[in-house]
């Protein structure tokens, strides 16, 4: 997903993700290499320290992120907050490091019992958990919440949850969604059974994201918008005005039931204000009038932050990549040689520099980011070859352009109009001109660029975009971004922006998904090969793997970074 853009784009990917076999229970970190974190993030959940409880945590962002409804909102900005507000049956472990990819039971008392060849998941609900209204969480609430995913047309209803029995009908007529045979509650036994049409090895991940939050059964069957919905976590929203501020206060009915799934929060209140410029956000954190800024600091303040305020800056690698899409269905990039030329020509170090330097990004060679299941260090397009990227080979790129016979053709480059994207776009324009193309740059507002580049009607030849993981599975990159099922000509929801569709590779992705049901390590090896084979055809040019910088005020302590949902807001203390 793009970092701040609402993810309404995946509606297309569905079928491919839900196709496969057998059992799965919890996530598996195997196959991932060591993270390259430069800073904070403990691997273990530390015990709660009452001495630090209290105070008001002040957060700032340039803009709000829209609806506060956890089953509707699809932005990292609010998903980060939801970690301390809402709970699903399962959750990603609230800790730092690779362990934060682990799925743990949350409202469920234990991991589900998986039966029927991986098609049935049975959860036992924890007892004694209450919503912020004081009402107890029941199996009816769980069933209603699954129905509500479809009733509010959650952005991932058709992609993450379409494998539930009855989901097809719910997608067609959301208002009358019952999932009668798909999600079955047994109030007496305190169990909820979820039936799938086919085994889905990634289903536990999908239950651990905010769209699967459990809400009261009487929640409105439409986007709640700015009206806060009752929570189960340590915080609840007291007020929300997207033009001004969001205020979180303690949920009076919260009692910690699992430190791994939903730990007690430190600050009494969280004041999240909107509307400042990014420059003034930096100044606010520097002088202590804010405790954390959501937006990436502007380029000209990075050096200052990294030196004068080094102790307050936390840099962490993300399982994400920025990449260039090459339209394989239109000239000049319907020619494989022309596509490969771009991969050879792009100076990843240059892009790293434009992003903020080597401590804020690293050169990318593969689609799967480092530290991610299936990633293998191997670089097909680096001068002299090697496991990691070293330098571009411009001479080879020029030779390939010449051989392809595409020199002199016009190429439009579509980028977002923010500072970093635009500067990378300018670099690409200069590079393509050097290669012999007539390149033009088209910066578009970030609000529309992501959907614009997906629609084939806009005839986008080359675009710069990025993808941040939804959950730690190779399919979330390869299958989602480059499968035939993700390519929908004429639609704004065609996340396979390159239009790449290779039936052979598609079949191997399905095989890897099936393998993952029984042998994740073997599956990850298959994904690694698929990654390399796709790169050989060069529909995309991975350029960088970004890192995130969290800039906190001097008084903030206990900074923890989850690789899944980033800084753990509830774990920050200000006393």
């Amino acid at each position: 997903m793009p970092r701040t853009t609402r993810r309404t784009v995946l509606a297309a990917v569905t079928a491919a993700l839900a196709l496969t076999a057998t059992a799965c229970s919890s996530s598996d970190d195997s196959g991932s290499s060591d993270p390259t974190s430069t800073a904070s993030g403990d691997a273990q959940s530390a015990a709660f320290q009452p001495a630090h409880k209290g105070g008001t945590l002040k957060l700032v962002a340039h803009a709000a992120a829209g609806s506060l409804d956890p089953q509707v909102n699809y932005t990292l900005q609010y998903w980060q907050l939801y970690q301390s507000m809402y709970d699903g049956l399962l959750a990603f472990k609230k800790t730092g490091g690779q362990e934060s990819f682990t799925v743990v039971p949350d409202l469920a008392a234990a991991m589900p019992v998986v039966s029927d060849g991986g098609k049935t998941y049975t959860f036992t609900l924890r007892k004694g958990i209450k919503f912020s209204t004081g009402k107890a969480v029941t199996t009816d609430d769980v069933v209603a919440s699954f129905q509500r995913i479809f009733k509010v047309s959650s952005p991932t209803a058709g992609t993450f949850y379409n494998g539930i029995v009855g989901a097809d009908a719910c997608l067609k007529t959301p208002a009358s969604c019952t999932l009668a045979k798909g999600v079955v509650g047994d109030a007496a036994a305190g169990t909820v059974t979820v039936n799938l049409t086919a085994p889905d090895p990634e289903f536990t991940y999908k239950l651990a994201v905010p769209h699967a939050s459990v809400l009261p059964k009487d929640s409105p069957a439409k986007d709640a918008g700015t009206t806060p919905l009752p929570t189960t976590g340590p915080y609840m929203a007291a007020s929300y005005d997207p033009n001004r501020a969001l205020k979180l206060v303690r949920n009076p009915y919260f009692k910690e039931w699992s430190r791994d799934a939903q730990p007690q929060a430190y600050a009494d209140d969280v004041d999240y204000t909107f509307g400042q410029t990014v420059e003034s956000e930096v100044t606010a954190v520097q002088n202590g009038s804010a405790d954390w800024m959501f937006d990436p600091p502007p380029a000209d303040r990075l050096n200052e932050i990294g030196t004068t305020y080094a102790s307050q800056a936390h840099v962490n690698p993300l399982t994400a990549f920025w990449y260039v899409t090459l339209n394989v269905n239109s000239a000049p990039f319907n020619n494989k040689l022309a596509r490969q030329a771009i991969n050879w020509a792009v100076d990843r170090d240059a892009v790293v520099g434009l992003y903020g330097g080597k401590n804020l990004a690293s050169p990318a060679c593969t689609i799967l980011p480092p530290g991610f299941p299936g990633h293998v260090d191997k670089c097909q397009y680096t001068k002299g070859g090697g496991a990691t990227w070293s330098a571009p080979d411009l001479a080879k790129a020029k030779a390939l352009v010449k051989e392809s016979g595409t020199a002199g053709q016009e190429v439009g480059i579509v980028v977002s109009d923010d500072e970093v994207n635009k500067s990378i776009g300018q670099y690409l324009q200069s590079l393509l001109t050097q290669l012999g193309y007539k390149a033009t740059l088209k910066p578009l507002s970030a609000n529309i660029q992501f959907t614009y580049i997906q629609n084939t009607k806009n005839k986008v030849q080359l675009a710069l975009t990025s993808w941040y993981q939804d959950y730690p599975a190779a399919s979330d990159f390869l299958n989602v971004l480059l499968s035939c099922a993700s390519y929908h000509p004429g639609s704004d929801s065609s996340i396979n922006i390159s239009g790449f569709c290779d039936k052979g590779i598609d079949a191997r992705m399905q095989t890897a998904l099936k393998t993952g049901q029984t042998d994740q390590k073997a599956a990850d090896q298959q994904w690694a090969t698929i990654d390399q084979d796709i790169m050989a055809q060069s529909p995309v040019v991975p350029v960088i793997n970004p890192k995130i910088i969290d800039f906190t005020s001097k008084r903030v302590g206990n900074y923890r970074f989850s690789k899944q949902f980033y800084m753990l807001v509830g774990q920050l203390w200000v006393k």
Partner: protein
Amino acid sequence: MSTLTDQLAVPEARRRSPGPWRTAAADLSRNRSAVAAALVLLVVVTVALLAPLYADHIAHTNPFQSHVSGTTVVDGRTVPVLTPSSTGLGLGVTPIGPTWDFGHYFLGADNQGRDVMARLLYGGRTSLFIGVTAALLCCVVGTAVGVVAGYAGGVVDSVISRVLDVIWAFPVYLLAICLSVVLLTDGLSLGPVTVEAGSLWLPVVIIAAIYVPYVARPMRGQVLVLRNKEFIQASIGSGAPALRVMRREVLPNVLPTAIVFLPLMTALAMLTESALSFLSVGVQPPDASWGTIIEDGLGLLYTRPTVTIAPGLLIALTTAALNVLGDGVRDALDPSARLRGGV
């Protein structure tokens, strides 16, 4: 007794009297502020015209190409054009600052590693080209529209005036931004006239179009007054065609006003171009204008303010000079100004 020839002879004093244009030129040349402004403009234009010479033979750089991984030599040491921070957490990359050496990076580099001085000179060419051509186009079209509306009167005047009112009703920058955003996608095609999306003529046409009412309306007002003058009535009464009256009698009388408008409109057009380019809807990369360079420098305000300050100063200097020159031209061409004690 004087002969007829003597009687018909032009008096010596009158024969020696210069025409109105010469008088105006003489007046202008005595206006020290206007002369100083003209000299400033001359220097700016000359330096801007020398941009290719500077880039190719002095700085040896291509100001339209990224040099993100480039290096240069400062004090005998090879240094990267974009220097990654090596202190603290090592965050951020800073372009090389001013070397004050005309041979390379005199004013430093922008975030693409391009020589700011070279881009400033090329940017000056672009900004001046757009400013002058847009102002010329605006004055020519505005004068023509104003003369036709004022002279024809009736329905023609009403239609033209209402169209001008509609254009005037929009906030000028909003209109310019809207037109630019729309036309930047596919360019402009009006009958035989086609302007490509990335062409410099696109901002020229847009800026000229939005300022036409600023010229046309005062022109129309002046023509409405002129039309009732005896010499115009005499010309009409003698059966001269309307076009001929407008060309021979009306136009020469409103031309000084158009000339007064020209430097002022040039300044206005340059400011508008800078604003549009700053907002990314004017001159498109990799072309440079002073507005685009300011935009490039926006992200470097804290570390390399010269990238923004240099084009900003040049815009201020040039538009101030154009305004002072415009005032001088107005004073020189406006007799009433002289009567009021002007130069």
